[in-house]
């Protein structure tokens, strides 16, 4: 059957989404299985996941994936039926096989097929066969135990006289159907004469079949008896080329933004809200069309109703994008397990709050930095069992990852009870690499933050674990790209805690709108500390540092936005304009503006999408009047104000 390309693309897309879920299920359940090897429910879950992958793969034409997953499924089936008790080596093998399935699916998506995992296949098959051995004697040998299937291509063209010789092609095909799984069957009709010339006693037809079976080619051939009358019987193992999906789905079908599944209930609510909105809109249109002064109150009412449903619609639509952070966290157990095993460490993992929701796009971008922190904690934080015992701690280290909502933010804590960070060593290293000077006085918190700076490798300095550089600066950059921040706390000898704070969504921002001459800008409200009118005495000009503001004993750099953005006609005297003090990463600057105009909630639009990244701006938005308004990039402005590389990103990479 030929499916239309559109339906196929849809099937493939759904398959990729589902397969990711099933692979996640396999992975987490296998890890759980390690602790509860005879948990029937877990085994059932595993079996179903493998079965679904197999089925899906076949539907979208990934024969290899289907074939390989079938082996995994067989092994899980043995376990499920109690013929085999899962041991750690089994679980290890199954985890590797899961990785393999994942890799094969991805490879198929990228249309670069991976080689058939023959070694894993052999390992799996060996276990499946051993597990079968004891049961084999008990069962009648006639029942073929489907263990290890191959695909064959069969061509069967009986001789013209076959029927007269007692061969019943239909019966043969039926028998074939009982002993193998027929995946495809096509008749050969070329020899069929016109009806007038047809001899009803002669056999004109031939068949081509694709079958799957544990039988070998000889056993299949043996079914076609008597051989002489059967004519042409060709049994050829399906080649890899034939098994490769002809129309391999392209990579873009997987990557392009993905999709979100929405419950019918949520969708219904949206439909209802849109319905309400349409009613209000109709009321407004009607009132405006036939307007008279006495209907003003009703108009105001209708507009208020429209506002209400719009706001609710906005909230609900945004809620659709919210997914549990568990989607990222489920990868952690596997990473911890593998890493701890390879390092000879014992780690007990605790996960909290995996149902905490945040924006889907953020969940995806959070994965890398989070995994980095987890690896960092296991690799450099938690000590070897012996070292821990000597220090009077339990042999196994504890790694705790907790996600929770706090106000409009989500915080994720990665806390270990390892050796902690050594402020003195970090300081030494930072001085040695020129990040700070010897007479800089820093609090512990500020010292710890140095490890997030580019060019600082904690590997040797803090934990004496040589090898790969840690690159926590990448984590910091990733988190900042999500408008988040990192706090580090640590007790020497008792562990370290990295706390990530992120907004729930990147799509909407509570802002403060401001005006400089005739240009408007929006500042993220969360970054604003206060806005003040400066008195003449508070302003100092310091050589090499620009202008500083003295605010209650603290000196802040003053950034004249009009100068930075080259806006003519702005208020240039700081005592006459307004200074908005903003903070990020515990650093503050004052921004000189003409006036504050409002506090809108804005939808963030990308400038980069069609233009490019602009220094000092994080994006744009469209305000009520339909005009584009630019949103200021506070972290970038603060870096500039404090002389920490106000240069564009690209320039810093080059250095």
């Amino acid at each position, binding site marked *: 059957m030929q499916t239309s390309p559109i339906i196929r693309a849809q099937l493939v897309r759904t398959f990729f989404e589902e397969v990711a879920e099933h692979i996640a299920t396999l992975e987490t359940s296998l890890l759980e299985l390690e602790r509860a090897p005879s948990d029937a429910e877990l085994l059932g879950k595993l079996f179903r996941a493998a079965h679904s992958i197999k089925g899906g793969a076949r539907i979208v034409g990934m024969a290899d994936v289907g074939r390989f997953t079938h082996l995994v499924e067989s092994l899980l089936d043995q376990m499920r039926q109690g013929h085999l008790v899962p041991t750690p080596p089994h679980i290890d093998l199954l985890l590797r096989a899961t990785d393999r399935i994942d890799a094969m699916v991805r490879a198929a998506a990228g249309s670069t097929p991976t080689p058939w995992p023959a070694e894993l296949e052999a390992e799996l098959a060996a276990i499946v066969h051993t597990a079968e051995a004891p049961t084999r004697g008990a069962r009648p040998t006639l029942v073929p135990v489907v263990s290890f299937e191959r695909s064959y291509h069969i061509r069967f063209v009986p001789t013209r006289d076959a029927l007269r010789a007692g061969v019943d092609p239909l019966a043969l095909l039926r028998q074939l159907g009982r002993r193998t799984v027929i995946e495809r069957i096509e008749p050969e009709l070329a020899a069929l004469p016109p009806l007038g010339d047809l001899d009803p006693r002669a056999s004109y037809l031939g068949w081509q079949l694709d079958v799957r079976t544990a039988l070998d080619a000889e056993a299949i051939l043996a079914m076609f008896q008597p051989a002489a009358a059967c004519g042409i019987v060709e049994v050829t193992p399906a080649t890899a080329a034939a098994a490769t999906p002809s129309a391999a789905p392209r990579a873009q079908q997987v990557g392009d933004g993905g999709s979100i599944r929405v419950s019918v209930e949520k969708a219904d609510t949206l439909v209802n809200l849109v319905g309400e909105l349409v009613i209000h809109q109709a009321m407004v249109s009607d009132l405006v069309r036939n307007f008279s002064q006495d209907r003003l109150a009703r108009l105001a009412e209708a507009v208020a109703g429209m506002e209400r449903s719009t706001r609710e619609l906005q909230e609900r639509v945004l809620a659709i994008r919210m997914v549990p952070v568990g989607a990222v966290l489920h990868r952690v157990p596997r990473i911890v397990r593998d890493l701890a095993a390879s390092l000879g460490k014992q780690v007990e993992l605790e996960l909290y709050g995996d149902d905490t929701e945040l924006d889907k796009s953020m969940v995806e971008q959070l994965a890398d930095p989070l995994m980095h922190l987890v690896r960092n904690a296991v690799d450099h934080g938690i000590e070897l069992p012996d070292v821990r015992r000597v220090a009077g701690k339990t042999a196994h280290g504890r790694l705790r990852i907790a996600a929770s909502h706090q106000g409009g933010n989500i915080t994720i804590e990665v806390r270990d009870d390892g050796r902690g960070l050594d402020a003195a060593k970090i300081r030494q290293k930072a001085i040695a690499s020129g990040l700070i000077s010897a007479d800089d006085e820093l609090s512990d918190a500020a010292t710890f933050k140095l490890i997030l700076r580019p060019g600082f490798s904690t590997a040797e300095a803090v934990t004496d674990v040589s090898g790969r550089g840690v690159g926590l600066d990448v984590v910091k950059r990733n988190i900042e790209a999500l408008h988040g921040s990192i706090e580090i706390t640590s007790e020497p000898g008792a562990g370290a805690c990295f706390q990530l704070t992120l907004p729930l969504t990147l799509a909407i921002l509570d802002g403060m709108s401001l005006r400089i001459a005739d*240009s408007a800008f929006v500042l993220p409200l969360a970054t604003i500390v206060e806005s003040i009118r400066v008195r003449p005495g508070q302003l100092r000009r310091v050589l090499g540092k620009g202008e500083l503001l003295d605010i209650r004993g603290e000196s802040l750099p003053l950034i004249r936005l009009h100068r930075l953005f080259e806006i003519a006609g702005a208020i240039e005297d700081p005592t006459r304009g307004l200074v908005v003090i903003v903070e990020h990463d515990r650093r503050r600057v004052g921004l000189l503006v003409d006036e504050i105009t409002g506090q809108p909630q804005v939808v963030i639009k990308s*400038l980069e999408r*069609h233009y490019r*990244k*602009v220094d000092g701006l994080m994006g744009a938005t469209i305000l009520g009047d339909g005009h*584009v*308004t*630019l949103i200021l990039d506070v972290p970038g402005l603060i870096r500039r104000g404090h002389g920490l590389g106000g240069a564009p990103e690209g320039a810093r990479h080059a250095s």
Partner: protein
Amino acid sequence: MPAEPEQYLTFVLGDEEYAIDISNVQEIKGYSAITTIPNAPAYVRGVMNLRGTVIPVVDLRARFGMPVKDYTKFTVIIIVTIADRIYGLVVDAVSDVLNLAGADLEPPPELGDALDTSFMTGIARNGDRLITVLQVDRALGIAGSSVS
């Protein structure tokens, strides 16, 4: 490449007539409010709101070193799509849709270093008119450099 003629949209800047491949043209809009972007090249006049999408607007007069005119309600913005990105082009007026075969196109004149002709596909002769055919991505001057 098929030999059949391709369609071009022609527009006017000052006394000159220019053409761009019509397959790049998404729509033609009247003037709408443009928000200046700080520290942008002079020919990037800013960004505008195209039904909720923020797109950059390039003034082709400024791009080609002509004196810039004030925008009026007669100013026209051609919305073009290039490799998945959308741009607005400010021109004096849109004039015509033209069928040009490859044979109608002459290569851009060699003018030495005096004039950059890299954003020209060629010169087309249409009756007694000479039309400069632009390679729209180069003419924009921002494509390619868009992601830092």
